[in-house]
């Protein structure tokens, strides 16, 4: 899902569809000052003021983009399940659930007594309508939520507290999908579906019709898109009530300003601290910097379109592995991330936890070995020291000189990362030039090309190498889907086209047994690693900071559950 959509170096915690944060239980690199909320006495009330670099652009689950919106919707709409601290699914609105023997029917038993903020009761009917509507228009108006209702045939509400969902195939990702599906008030939304295409649903802007009808831990008291949005605790919430009286989420266009306000005591919590600012923020009195294994990792993206015309030597995994030896990852981690990142070599990232293939070993920085490997491949150095690719059937002899696309929207310093890579490769006789699409979407167009068409197999011709990052989900399904042909011209950013891989992908998504699924997932990771369609550089540490006046902030789960805003309380 993602390529971080950020503006000019301002980082967001999470991106589209609320992922990120978290991390596997096995790799906590945290120095977090906060602890998870225990049964100790909790001080109620107070206003939690959060600074963020990402704003809420919409409260419509069928039409939103910024990650902050996804998080906000967790707080105001009901969801069936949610993650716990270890990324296991735990009850939210659904108290219990069971699966039929064939795995095609799921029955959820919902907590009773919930009500919408306009006083109307919250019932299973709302959930059934939301899911059915998402299925109905999944190719168009509600495409945004289509992935959450993958394989769903229909949903029904036999009574107010029971929801039955039927699938056409057994699915490994039912809970993952439903956990991210906000349930909407049917009585507000259904009248908007007038034209049979659902366009009224897509266009609806709840924030323009205050007071919004919500049924979460919070209601929205005030909304300023690029200013402050105020979440007010909802006393009628069916679940654990929020401790804070209200939460104010303020958008900042640059992190310096945000940090200045934290220092001035105008903020209690920053959802992301830039790497270069960690030192300064750590030095502030009464402020704790929270570190936890982040989801985001950065990588070198290789054009792996088997039909690419130019620089076909870069399709050779041996070449890419040799070049990978020229990347001084530790220096990148030290300089660019100020040490706040760890080595990783799987495309599902540390956040996948159980599903990460730990047998993959990061390629070691070794210029000599890299040089030897290239020498061995016959790419000899010319008089000026640069390597030359000998002529082949399709291409004339040419120097190993490539453009590397760097989007400006990285949340770390892409220019410097490039400098370090360039430095290493220069010692191997490979010349690279930095180009920029200027922004992430332009960069994306650069990768796929305007003529991209999966059915005709066109696209992915312009670029050779890009530097980019991913923010995977805890469940590896989506991340692994991005390399399939089905994602061509969409989220597939490498042009990788391997039917064997695609078959494995389909197989894992319907394998409900966790262990059996891991075997397949491991195999897929190995396959990608061997092909080197990505050379993963580093897994970021998620950095946030909070004032010591507040406790109970746990960014590890912040983006995945209602506890994000509901749990914190004054110390």
């Amino acid at each position, binding site marked *: 899902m993602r390529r971080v959509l950020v503006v000019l170096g301002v980082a967001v915690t999470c991106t589209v569809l609320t992922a990120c944060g978290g991390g596997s239980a096995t790799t906590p690199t945290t120095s977090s000052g906060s602890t998870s909320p225990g049964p100790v006495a909790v001080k109620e009330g107070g206003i939690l003021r959060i600074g963020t670099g990402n704003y809420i652009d919409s409260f419509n689950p069928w039409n939103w983009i910024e990650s902050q919106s996804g998080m906000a919707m967790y707080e105001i709409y009901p969801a069936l399940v949610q993650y716990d601290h270890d990324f296991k699914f735990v009850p939210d609105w659904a108290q219990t659930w069971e699966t039929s023997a064939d795995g095609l029917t799921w029955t959820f038993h919902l907590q009773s007594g919930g009500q919408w903020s306009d006083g109307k009761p919250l019932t299973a009917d709302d959930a059934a309508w939301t899911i059915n509507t998402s299925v109905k228009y999944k190719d168009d108006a509600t495409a945004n939520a289509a992935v959450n209702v993958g394989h769903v045939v229909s949903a029904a509400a036999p009574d107010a507290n029971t929801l039955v969902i039927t699938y056409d195939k057994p699915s490994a990702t039912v809970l993952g999908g439903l956990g991210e599906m906000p349930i909407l008030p049917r009585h507000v939304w259904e009248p908007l579906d007038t034209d049979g295409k659902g366009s009224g649903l897509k266009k609806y802007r709840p924030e323009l019709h205050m007071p919004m009808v919500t049924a979460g831990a919070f209601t929205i008291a005030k909304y300023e898109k690029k200013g402050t949005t105020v979440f007010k605790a909802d006393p009628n919430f069916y679940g654990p009530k929020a401790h804070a009286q209200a939460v104010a989420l303020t958008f900042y266009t640059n992190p*310096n300003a945000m940090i200045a306000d934290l220092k001035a005591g105008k903020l209690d919590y920053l959802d992301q601290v830039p790497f*270069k*600012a960690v030192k300064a923020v750590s030095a502030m009195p009464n402020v704790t910097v929270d570190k936890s294994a982040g989801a985001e990792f950065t990588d070198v993206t290789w054009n792996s379109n088997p039909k690419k015309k130019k620089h076909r030597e870069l399709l050779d995994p041996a070449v890419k592995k040799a070049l990978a030896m020229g990347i001084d990852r530790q*220096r990148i981690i030290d300089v660019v991330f100020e040490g706040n990142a760890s080595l990783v070599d799987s495309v599902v990232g540390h956040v996948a936890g159980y599903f990460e293939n730990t047998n993959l070993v990061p390629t070691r920085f070794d210029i000599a070995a890299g040089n030897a490997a290239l020498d061995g491949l016959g790419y000899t150095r010319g008089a000026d020291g640069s390597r030359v690719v000998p002529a082949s059937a399709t291409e004339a002899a040419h120097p190993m000189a490539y453009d590397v696309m760097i989007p400006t929207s990285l949340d770390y*310093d892409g*220019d410097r990362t490039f400098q370090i890579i*360039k430095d290493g490769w220069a010692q191997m006789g490979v010349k690279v030039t930095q180009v*920029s699409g*200027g922004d992430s979407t332009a960069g994306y167009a650069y990768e796929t090309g305007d003529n991209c068409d999966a059915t005709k197999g066109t696209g992915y011709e312009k670029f050779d190498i890009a530097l980019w990052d991913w923010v995977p989900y805890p469940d590896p399904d989506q991340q692994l889907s991005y390399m399939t042909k089905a994602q061509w011209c969409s989220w597939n950013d490498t042009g990788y086209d391997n039917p064997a891989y695609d078959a494995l992908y389909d197989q894992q998504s319907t394998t409900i047994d966790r262990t059996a699924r891991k075997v397949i997932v491991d195999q897929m990771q190995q396959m990608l690693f061997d092909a080197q369609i990505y050379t993963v550089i580093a897994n970021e540490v998620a950095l946030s900071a909070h004032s010591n006046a507040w406790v109970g902030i746990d960014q590890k789960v912040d983006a995945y559950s209602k506890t994000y805003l509901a749990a914190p309380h004054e110390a």
Partner: protein
Amino acid sequence: MKRRGPVLQAVLGEWQSRIGLAILFVTLIAAVFGQLLEPYGIDQQVGGTLDPPSSAHWLGTDGGGVDLVTLLIAGARVSLIVGFAGAAVAMVIGGLVGVLSGFFGGKTDAALMRVTDYFLVLPDVPLLIIVAAIWGRSLQNIVLIIGLIYWTSTARLIRAQVKSVRERVYVRRAQALGASNTRLIFRHIVPQIAPLLIANTVLMVAQAIFLETFITFLGLGDPSAISWGKLIENSFKDDAVLNGAWWAVVPPGLAVTIVILACTLVGQSMEDALNPRLRVGHLSVRRFRVRPALRERDGA
């Protein structure tokens, strides 16, 4: 007998422009011989990130641990190249349009000036962003963009000058003699407006350096070129302000300010020298003096 025009006199004679020239000269030296002067490599990590100034690194290090003195000298090179090249492009386009428009007048003039007018009202920042997005981020594109944005003012200035010089009697005399247009333009008109063109170019260099820092700050600069604008941008990206690292923030901006100031001082004194209307001032705080009467009359 060597002729020293009022312009040269102004440039060499006034202390402001002398200071300006000296600054430009020093910067030019730094730019040309920079590589010999740079103590370290521009990619070389020589210390921690944002280390404060020390005896080894007079201006400390930047967010990548690179010596800032080195970067500052390297920045002079790129900034001056961009400045001069950008100004040159503006001059060439603007000069050409201005000369054609001013010299031929009539329909040529009307058409060219209309185009200039439209360019003049185009908002430059969105325009440069769009153009940068189309062309991509590279030094030569920045130069072109600068030229594209600034040629209009030059064109208007040159046009006005050419128009007036064209009506000068000696040009008309040459015309009456049967001189061709080429001869009139290149022998009589261009040399006459050259000082102004040069003054304008010098001012334009300042503008170009200024715009480069701006473009770079917008993230549309050449990512691999170390210019002063890039250093300012880096200091911002590296959160130098937050870390109290003034040494990363102040020097590059100061360098830009000083060079722009120098260009402005030189350019302005040239322009002032060329503007006879500025030489007369009928209002002055000072007044004429009265000399004491002589005791005795000169008895000649």
